[in-house]
């Protein structure tokens, strides 16, 4: 494999409530260097227009479960970044 090609990974990220408002979208597609973690996803999201309104360490979910920022992400994962929960 030629050394000049960095492996990359495309993931779809779901956004909700105030974060969807901030980025003006309910989902975004991100191309990340591989390997990547949820922290990488957040970092790339925060570089998008409006993304600076997201905190550095938001709640994250992967495949319908809460997930820590250092969890790796893989192609096909359902990733979501969650504003402060307000159920109940």
């Amino acid at each position: 494999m030629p050394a000049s090609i960095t492996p990359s990974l495309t993931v779809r990220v779901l956004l909700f409530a105030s974060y969807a408002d901030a980025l003006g979208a309910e989902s975004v597609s991100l191309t990340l260097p591989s390997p990547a973690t949820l922290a990488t996803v957040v970092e790339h999201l925060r570089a998008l227009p409006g993304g600076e309104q997201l905190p550095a360490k938001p709640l994250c979910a992967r495949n319908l479960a809460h997930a820590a920022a250092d969890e790796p992400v893989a192609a096909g994962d359902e990733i979501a970044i969650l504003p402060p929960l307000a159920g109940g």
Partner: protein
Amino acid sequence: MGFVTAEPIELAPLIAAVQAPERGGVASFLGLVRNHHGGRAVLRLEYSAYAPMAEAECARIVAEAEGRWQVSVALRHRVGSLAVGDVAVAAAAASAHREAAFAACRYVIEEVKRRVPIWKREFHADGTEVWVDPTATLQHA
């Protein structure tokens, strides 16, 4: 039936779903839309959910409660537009022992608030609206 619903929530069917001849105690909780929050008059709320994860998280919470206590648990959370007094969340726990019923019901409600991906937009009497952020404690002073 799912845990998250756009239909009005009734407590009676939840209690009927958990009660059984050997379970003599049923503890339940209703969370209702209040007419005030953070010092402002509230007209209505719009609840939205990350529905598939909310379903999965509710199922995990119910399974945890049923694993920890000898109880049967029912849980519903409403989404959509709610008026003051509407039921936002309802939980019921039935057990042979009232301590277990109370403990499980309380656990379920606390965990729902802590873990289930649901958000609410609050519409105030003064025309303003805001996403509710329970972590922003100053606004609740």
